[in-house]
C-alpha cells in the first residue's frame, strides 16, 4: 500500500501523536504501508526552504526505514526559488514537490505558478498541491488561511506538457486530465462511494494526511465505500504508481 500524503516534523500549532518519525514509520508499517510520500510541516511557515528540504531528505533517510520518500517544497514567492527546485531533483533525487499556495501567498492564476509548474514538469517531477491544511473554523484566529481555489488547474495541466498534479486534502475531487487526488478530506457517509461511481475514480490515491489526521480515517472510508478487488487495489497503490511513473491518463 502506498500512502501519498504524510508529513514529518511539527505542525506549528500542536504536537500530534505520530509526529516523531520513528513512531510514524512504525504506524505506517504496521498498517501495511510499504511506501509513503513525506512532506514537511516546516514547509508551511518556514522561509529557509533549503534547510526544510535538506532536513526532510535526511529524516527520511535516517529514520524512514526504507519506507519514507521525501517530497520537497518550493515557494515561488521566495527569491531564487529555482535553486530549491533544482536541489530537490538533482541533489536529493526527489520525484515530487509539494506546494502550499495558500500559506505562501500565491494563486494558481499567477504567472509565477505557471513558471514553477512548467519547470517542475521539465524536470520530470510531479507536483502535489495541498488544497488546505486545516478546517477554517478551527484555525488559529491570528493565522486564518482559506483553501486554494483550483479553477485554473485544468487549464494548467492542459497547456503545460508532461505536467502531473496531485491535489491533496480537497473535499470534492473531480475528473480533470492529468490531475490526481487523495480522499482524506472527502466527507459524508456516501462521499467516497459516489466518487467511485464516476470517472474520477481512476485518479484517486490513498493519502492519509497522517499525522495531522488519524491514519485510520482514510482507511475506514475505503471500508465504508465497500471498495474491493481491482477498485481497492487502484486506491491502495495502483493509481499512485501511475502518477509516479508518469504513464496512463
Amino acid at each position, binding site marked *: 500500500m502506498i500512502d501519498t500524503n504524510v508529513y514529518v516534523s511539527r505542525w506549528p500549532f500542536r504536537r500530534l501523536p505520530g509526529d516523531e518519525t520513528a513512531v510514524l514509520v512504525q504506524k505506517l508499517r504496521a498498517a501495511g504501508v510499504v511506501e509513503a510520500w513525506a512532506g514537511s510541516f516546516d514547509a508551511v511557515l518556514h522561509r529557509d526552504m533549503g534547510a526544510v528540504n535538506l532536513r526532510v531528505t535526511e529524516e527520511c533517510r535516517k529514520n524512514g526505514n526504507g519506507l519514507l520518500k521525501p517530497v520537497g517544497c518550493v515557494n515561488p514567492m521566495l527569491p531564487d526559488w529555482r535553486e530549491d527546485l533544482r536541489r530537490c531533483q538533482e541533489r536529493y533525487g526527489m520525484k515530487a514537490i509539494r506546494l502550499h499556495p495558500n500559506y505562501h501567498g500565491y494563486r494558481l492564476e499567477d504567472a509565477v505558478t505557471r513558471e514553477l509548474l512548467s519547470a517542475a514538469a521539465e524536470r520530470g517531477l510531479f507536483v502535489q498541491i495541498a488544497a488546505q491544511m*486545516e478546517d477554517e473554523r*478551527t484555525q488559529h484566529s491570528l493565522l486564518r488561511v482559506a483553501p486554494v481555489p483550483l479553477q485554473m488547474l485544468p487549464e494548467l495541466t492542459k497547456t503545460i506538457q508532461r505536467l502531473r498534479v496531485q491535489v491533496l486534502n480537497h473535499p470534492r475531487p473531480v475528473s480533470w486530465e492529468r490531475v490526481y487526488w487523495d480522499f482524506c478530506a472527502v466527507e459524508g*457517509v456516501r462521499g467516497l462511494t459516489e466518487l467511485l461511481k464516476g470517472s474520477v475514480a481512476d485518479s484517486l490515491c490513498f493519502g492519509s494526511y497522517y499525522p495531522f489526521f*488519524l491514519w485510520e480515517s482514510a482507511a475506514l472510508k475505503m471500508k465504508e465505500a465497500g471498495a474491493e478487488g481491482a477498485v481497492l487495489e487502484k486506491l491502495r497503490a495502483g493509481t499512485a504508481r501511475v502518477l509516479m511513473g508518469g504513464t496512463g491518463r
Partner: protein
Amino acid sequence: MIWDLHCHFSGFGGRTPEEGMAEVIRLGDRMGIERFCIYLGFGREENPSPAQMRTHNDEVLRALDHWRHRAWAFVYLNPNYLDESLREFDRCVKDGPMVGVKLWVAQKASGRALDPIIERAAAMQAVIFQHTWWKTGGNLSGESTPLDVVELAKRHPKTPIICGHTGGNWELGIRAVRGQTNLSVDLAGSDPTNGFVEMAVRELGAERIIWGSDAGGRSLGSQLAKVQGSTVPEAAKKLMLGENLKRMMMPILTAKGFRV
C-alpha cells in the same frame, strides 16, 4: 459494542425516512455500529416553526418504526417556541418512543427559555444533547459555544448534559467544560484530527466522552477513526464508543421497557 450518539438519516441517500434508515443500518452493519441515536428529519431549519418541528419529529418516528431494536430517537425542540416545545416533548418522549432531546442553533444554551425544557427532560432522565461550535470565523447568532452550555449546566448541576461536537474547536471546548462535571462531550462532526481524543481523555477522563458520527454529513469511517486510531487504552475506547452512552441511557430505556 459501538453506539452512535449522533446520526441523521438524511444524507444516507434514501428518498424517505424508511429508505434513509435502511441505509443507516446497512452501513452501520458494515462498520460494526450496533445502535444509533437519530434526530432531525430531512429539513435543516435553524429556527423551526412548531409545524416544522413536528414534521422533523414525525419523519424521525417513521424512520424508527422498523428499527426499534437498532435505533433510538431524540426529539428536536426549539426554545423560541417554548410551550409548543414542551407539548412536543410530551408527544414524542413522555407519551412516545423517543428517549432524548436535541437542541440546535435556534437559541443559545445560556438562555433561560431552555430551563423548563431541561427540567422536563431531567424528570424523565431523557438524554439532553445541545449542539455547540466555537468557530474561528464566528458562530451563527443563536449558536452556542461550550461556554453557553457551561452556563446552562451550572443552573442544572444534577442533570447530565452533552456538549455537542465538543465545540468543534476542541482544544477550546475541552478546557471550557472541564470544570463542569455534569457535562459530557460528543466527539462527532469535526475533522478526524489527531490528538483530539488524547487531550479529551487526559483533561476530562474517558467517562465524560461519548462517540458520535454526525453521519450522513460525515463519514462513519472518518469519525470512528478518532477513537479507533487513537493512542488511549482499550478500556477508554470502549467507554467512549458505547459504554458511557449506554450508562447514561439505561434509566430511560429501562423505564420505557426497551431491552438492551
